């Protein structure tokens, strides 16, 4: 799997990712990151803010200002997704992140189940963006050999411990298959 060179960070992703001891690996995967202003407003505690400060001072992270036309496209995505009962709810900040990722042709990093499911069911609405949750990004890190001393299950365990995030065992198995790291 090849990834775009840039990514868009959603709040629910960075809140957990910023607690992981190897969070800096994101800079080895993407040359630049973007975060909409509305998402930045959701981050106020010490660890995530410190991680964002590091990324901003490195010149890696750009805060993207709010534009009305992005909002209109985001509402349209929310309504499209709501027509399909298989898609859990998508909230406005995640929808805005998706639209920004689509405009930039970036990877969208999010934990929002609605966005992840919508991406699988109506990929044309996201193209050329691709959507990854932390589990898939960890699988990519493992498949690329960025943590050669750590197996995928060990990486998962480390991430869960550091971030208080938990993955579904079925999704871990499915993602390991997807990335050929079973």
């Amino acid at each position, binding site marked *: 799997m090849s990834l775009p060179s840039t990514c868009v960070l959603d*709040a*629910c992703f960075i*809140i*957990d990712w910023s607690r992981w001891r190897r969070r800096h690996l994101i800079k080895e995967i993407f040359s630049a990151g973007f975060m909409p202003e509305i998402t930045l*407003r*959701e*981050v*106020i*505690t010490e660890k*995530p803010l410190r991680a964002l400060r590091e990324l901003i001072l490195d010149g890696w992270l750009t805060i993207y200002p709010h534009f009305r036309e992005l909002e209109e496209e985001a509402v349209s995505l929310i309504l499209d997704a709501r027509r399909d009962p*298989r898609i*859990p*709810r998508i*909230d406005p*900040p*995640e929808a805005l992140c998706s639209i920004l990722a689509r405009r930039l042709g970036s990877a969208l990093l999010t*934990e*929002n*189940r*609605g966005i992840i*499911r919508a991406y*699988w069911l109506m990929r044309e609405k996201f193209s050329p963006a691709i959507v990854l949750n932390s589990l898939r990004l960890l699988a990519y890190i493992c498949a690329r050999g960025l943590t050669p001393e750590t197996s995928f299950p060990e990486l998962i365990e480390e991430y869960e411990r550091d*971030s*208080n*995030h*938990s993955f*579904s*065992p*079925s*999704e871990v198995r*499915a993602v390991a298959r997807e990335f050929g790291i079973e």
Partner: protein
Amino acid sequence: MPSEEWELIDEELRELRRREADWDYIRGLPPKLREAIEVYIETGDLWISAKIAGMTADEFNEIRIRAGILH
């Protein structure tokens, strides 16, 4: 991934959140926060739960961690 597999994953995550939650802590929270936590346990949706609690997603995440609920 087939739709049934997604549903299984969502159910596994919901079950993990229910099982790991510190219900004594949750029962001691003010009503608004308790409602928000219960929405989170059922949906796993951080942003909407945070808005019900009147907080940012990050602030609400701290409550989630204290309540022992997995994200």
